[in-house]
């Protein structure tokens, strides 16, 4: 900002002696004095106080001799009348804090005239003046001065932060105070406003150390704290395995912008964390117990752990021939035995009942006790959940638990509507079995006998069946058939099966959040699962008559089950068309000719590009998406994404398809940033430098070591600062002519679109499911995988190239349907 010149000073102080004018001009320059001398009286009184208390330091600071300084400060007794009103103004002007931060600091410190404040201020200022260039190039002037001002005037802050006269000492004291504050915050666990204090302390420490490298602590969350997020009581089977179990996840909270964006906290945690193996029930005799040294042998423990990890990976990669999967012959034995006319009792339970129960287990994938305890209703009232018996069919009514709180978007017209209850029609053959059996008329499916009685009866029933056919059907294999078959073939969406089973599984924890199906679709898909089963039987016995499945009236359902954040196609399309029309209305020269137009256009263009990125790639709603152009693998039509909102693990870094439209839009955006860097070179030098660096191919040339680059990536990933490619200009609250840059993030971007920002993932997943894409590819694009399924894992056999080839046309079509277009930025056009 400009400061008074010698001529200005002459007019202001008409009686000043000639030789004093130059030193005075330097002094006013150093304190950022405005040209109209507004508020200088207050600042002058502070300067006088500083000089009186610490004359030597004062003179060193402003680089003037002591006697001259004295004379300078005395000059102000006779001020030109014309200036007096401004000079004596005691109100802080708007915008000083951002435009004249030093002057503003001195102005405010006039109210703190104590020897301690004076010495702290002088120490601060001398450090500032000595290192001003570095502080300016890092664009930290304002934050440093603000943190000093707010911390000093905050009485809660320990004074030892300001008492020392050594820079190292001060920085260390600040660090200590900050740590104490953070500990207190952790203990009290309440909002006491100390989080902002911690932030200011951090800023000030950076300032004294002159090092603004973000030192985010990347210590992975300790195993212990990750484990604490899992339940101790709820255990579920690892799908596809025989005897591995895992603990379920407890519910976690998230910050508001993320909740509004439709992010679910569960996704941040690994699907599998705690694995339990079944222990032998009987204690071993004394002489067989191993020695303590053997039990504590690290090599053995590691070997055992690796074995378990391998088992888990293997469980998730079973083939249709896996031993724990019912084979076609076994299925058809079960099927044919249904039609035998024998009516013997097994363990006092009629055979028909046992068969009926086994078939319900087989077609719903539920376990015995669930099936036995299933509520049965004989009226069609709406209040009932469970099995509904009507005149001609059996209906299973389910109500899956919603995955997220909807909050802000609960009545957003742009989202697909939700219902909680859905009805699934069970096959006719099963209705006939049910009618013939003795199970009718009870309120529980199993009737009077206990679950255990059934268990024993089923065991002996299966034993006879096994003896007759020389096979090994067990209750457990029947119970797990559907889910095991599902992951062995990967033809169907696991979320659908989860609805049918009525039990939440870790396997579909993340997908569940994104799946939306109408009631008819759910029925269709469940029938496809059953049809698959019958087709498998056919593989053994070609004569099998595939039973007739309930006919569905295909209607256009407007409400469905599952994801609460799936946008309607029309909503996205409208938004895109609206934006396109808006962006195209400008002329090339109009958007660049002055700063305000440029800022406005940049924000709009960036928002368009970002929403396209979110929509096309299934990027999560994170801060600073796509931190570098280096992550664009254009040759392969791919994009490298690391979009978990926390830095807890790297396990969700993935390579996904970059659809053609998005690819060209990102290239346009790259040119846009290059040009923007040029245009703002004088107005936002720091941001311009950063964009220049980002757009050149060798930006990390100074970071030769791998670790340095990883560290850079971790700071850039999900960064809330302004170091990204997609920053937006945000208007300052106090000074509307002043714009700050901020990385885009859910809270800023949501101002541009009335949809939860995670909508892209919801839409992509639904679109891919509707296009009948292989489940593995859906997981590939969205990054929903469990241990052993990661495409970038060591033993993965997935070919990225093939996956991209298959997905690309589907996604291209999706974007075309939504009328997305790649538009070049007007600021890069010929400005005719």
């Amino acid at each position, binding site marked *: 900002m*400009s400061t008074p010149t010698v001529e200005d000073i002459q007019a202001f102080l008409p009686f000043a002696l000639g030789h004093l004018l130059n030193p005075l001009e330097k002094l006013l320059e150093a304190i950022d004095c405005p040209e109209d001398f507004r508020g200088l009286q207050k600042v002058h009184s502070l300067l006088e106080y500083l000089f009186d208390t610490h004359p030597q330091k004062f003179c060193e600071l402003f680089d003037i001799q002591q006697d001259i300084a004295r004379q300078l400060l005395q000059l102000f007794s006779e001020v030109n009348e014309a200036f007096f009103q401004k000079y004596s103004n005691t109100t802080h002007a708007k915008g000083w804090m951002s435009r004249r931060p030093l002057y503003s600091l001195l102005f405010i410190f006039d109210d703190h005239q104590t020897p301690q404040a004076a010495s702290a201020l002088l120490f601060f200022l001398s450090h500032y003046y000595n290192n001003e260039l570095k502080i300016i190039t890092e664009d930290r002037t304002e934050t440093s001065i603000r943190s000093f001002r707010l911390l000093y005037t905050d009485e809660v802050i320990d004074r030892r932060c300001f008492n020392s006269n050594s820079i190292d000492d001060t920085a260390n004291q600040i660090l200590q105070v900050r740590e104490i504050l953070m500990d207190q915050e952790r203990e009290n666990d309440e909002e006491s406003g100390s989080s902002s204090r911690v932030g200011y302390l951090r800023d000030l420490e950076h300032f004294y150390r002159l090092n603004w490298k973000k030192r985010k602590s990347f210590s992975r969350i300790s195993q212990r704290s990750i484990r604490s997020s899992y339940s101790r009581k709820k255990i579920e089977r690892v799908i596809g395995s025989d005897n591995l179990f895992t603990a379920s996840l407890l519910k976690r909270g998230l910050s508001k912008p993320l909740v509004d964006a439709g992010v679910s906290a569960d996704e941040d945690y690994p699907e599998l964390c705690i694995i339990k193996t079944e222990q032998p029930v009987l204690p071993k005799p004394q002489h067989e117990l191993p020695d303590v040294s053997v039990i504590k042998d690290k090599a053995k423990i590691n070997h055992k752990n690796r074995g378990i990890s391998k088992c888990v990976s293997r469980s998730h990669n079973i083939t249709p021939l896996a031993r724990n999967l019912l084979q076609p012959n076994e299925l058809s034995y079960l099927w044919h035995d249904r039609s035998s006319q024998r009516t013997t009792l097994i363990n006092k339970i009629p055979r028909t009942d046992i068969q009926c129960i086994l078939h319900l287990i087989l077609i719903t994938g539920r376990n015995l006790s669930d099936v036995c305890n299933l509520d049965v209703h004989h009226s069609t009232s709406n209040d009932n959940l469970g099995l509904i018996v009507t005149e001609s069919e059996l209906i299973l009514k389910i109500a899956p638990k919603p995955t997220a709180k909807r909050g802000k978007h609960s009545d957003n017209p742009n989202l697909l509507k939700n219902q909680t209850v859905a009805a699934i029609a069970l096959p006719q053959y099963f209705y006939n079995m049910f009618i013939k059996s003795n199970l009718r008329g009870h309120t529980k499916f199993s009737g009077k006998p206990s679950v255990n009685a059934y268990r024993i009866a089923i065991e002996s029933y299966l034993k006879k069946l096994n003896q007759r056919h020389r096979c090994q059907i067990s209750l457990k294999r029947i119970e797990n058939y559907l889910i095991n078959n599902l992951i062995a073939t990967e033809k169907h969406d696991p979320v659908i099966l989860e609805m049918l089973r009525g039990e939440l599984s870790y396997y579909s924890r993340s997908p569940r959040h994104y799946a939306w199906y109408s009631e008819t679709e759910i029925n269709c898909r469940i029938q496809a699962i059953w049809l698959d089963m019958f087709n498998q039987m056919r593989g053994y016995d070609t004569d099998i008559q595939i039973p007739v499945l309930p006919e569905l009236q295909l209607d256009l359902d407007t409400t469905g089950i599952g994801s609460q954040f799936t946008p309607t196609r029309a909503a996205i399309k409208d938004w895109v068309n609206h934006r396109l029309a808006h962006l195209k209305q400008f002329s090339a020269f109009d958007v660049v*000719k002055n700063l305000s137009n440029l800022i406005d256009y940049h924000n709009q263009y960036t928002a368009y590009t970002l929403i396209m990125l979110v929509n096309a790639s299934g990027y999560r709603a994170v801060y600073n998406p796509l931190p570098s152009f280096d992550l664009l693998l254009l040759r392969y039509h791919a994009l490298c994404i690391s979009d978990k909102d926390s830095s807890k693990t790297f396990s969700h870094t993935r390579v996904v398809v970059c659809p053609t439209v998005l690819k060209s839009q990102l290239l346009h955006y790259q040119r846009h940033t290059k040009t923007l860097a040029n*245009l703002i070179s004088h107005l936002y030098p720091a941001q*311009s*430098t950063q964009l220049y660096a980002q757009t050149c191919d060798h930006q990390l040339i100074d970071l030769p070591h791998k670790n340095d680059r990883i560290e850079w990536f971790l700071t850039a990933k999900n960064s809330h600062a302004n170091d990204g490619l997609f920053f937006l200009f945000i208007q300052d609250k106090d000074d509307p002519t002043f714009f700050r840059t901020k990385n885009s993030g859910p809270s800023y971007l949501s101002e541009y679109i009335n949809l939860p920002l995670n909508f892209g993932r919801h839409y992509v997943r639904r679109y891919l499911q509707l296009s009948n894409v292989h489940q593995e590819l859906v997981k590939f694009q969205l990054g929903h995988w469990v241990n052993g399924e990661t495409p970038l894992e060591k033993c993965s056999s997935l070919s990225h190239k093939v996956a991209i080839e298959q997905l690309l046309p589907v996604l291209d079509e999706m974007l075309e349907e939504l009328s997305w277009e790649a538009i070049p930025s007007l600021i890069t056009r010929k400005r005719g």
Partner: protein
Amino acid sequence: MKDEIMRFDATLLDNVELIRVSVKELISDDTIQDLFAQANPLSGLRTSNEANDKSAYLFNLLSLQSPIICYRYRKQFKALTGSFTLTRLRSAIAQHYLPDDFSILVFALKKKPSSSIKRAIVLFDLTNDLLSKCFISDTKKISFYLRSWFKKDEGKRSIYQSDEWLTFFPELNSAEKVANFLSISKADL
């Protein structure tokens, strides 16, 4: 105004020194920031997104060919002219074509100029390029830049009668003459 700039010009050669400073120490002056925020001359260029990698740039020569005139401000220097040079050098440093501490020769004014002189220096530089060297040929744009940079004095018909304008172009005191000078029709201006 006119006298001031004339006096400044007459004594300029004695009041300026050629020194070597690091590019990082050069900050654009507020006058440049204000004028650029109103009408950014970089946006008139056809090659606005031309990057360094396209040309083997002779950076030292560039810094002398269109030199930077600046004045001391605390421990830095505020640049008044040569904004295009500065842009190019900054981008070269950011993209690692030049070392971080690259330094060039600049003209430093011994005395801090008053704000009207600063404005005059910047305007003289920009309008000279705009009108005499014609780095932008589109007439509508030329008119836009002139209108944004020059203030119309009260009671005068257009910016071409303002004091500021007449300082630089005393002969071109009406829109017609300016149009004539640029060989365009008055309506375009």
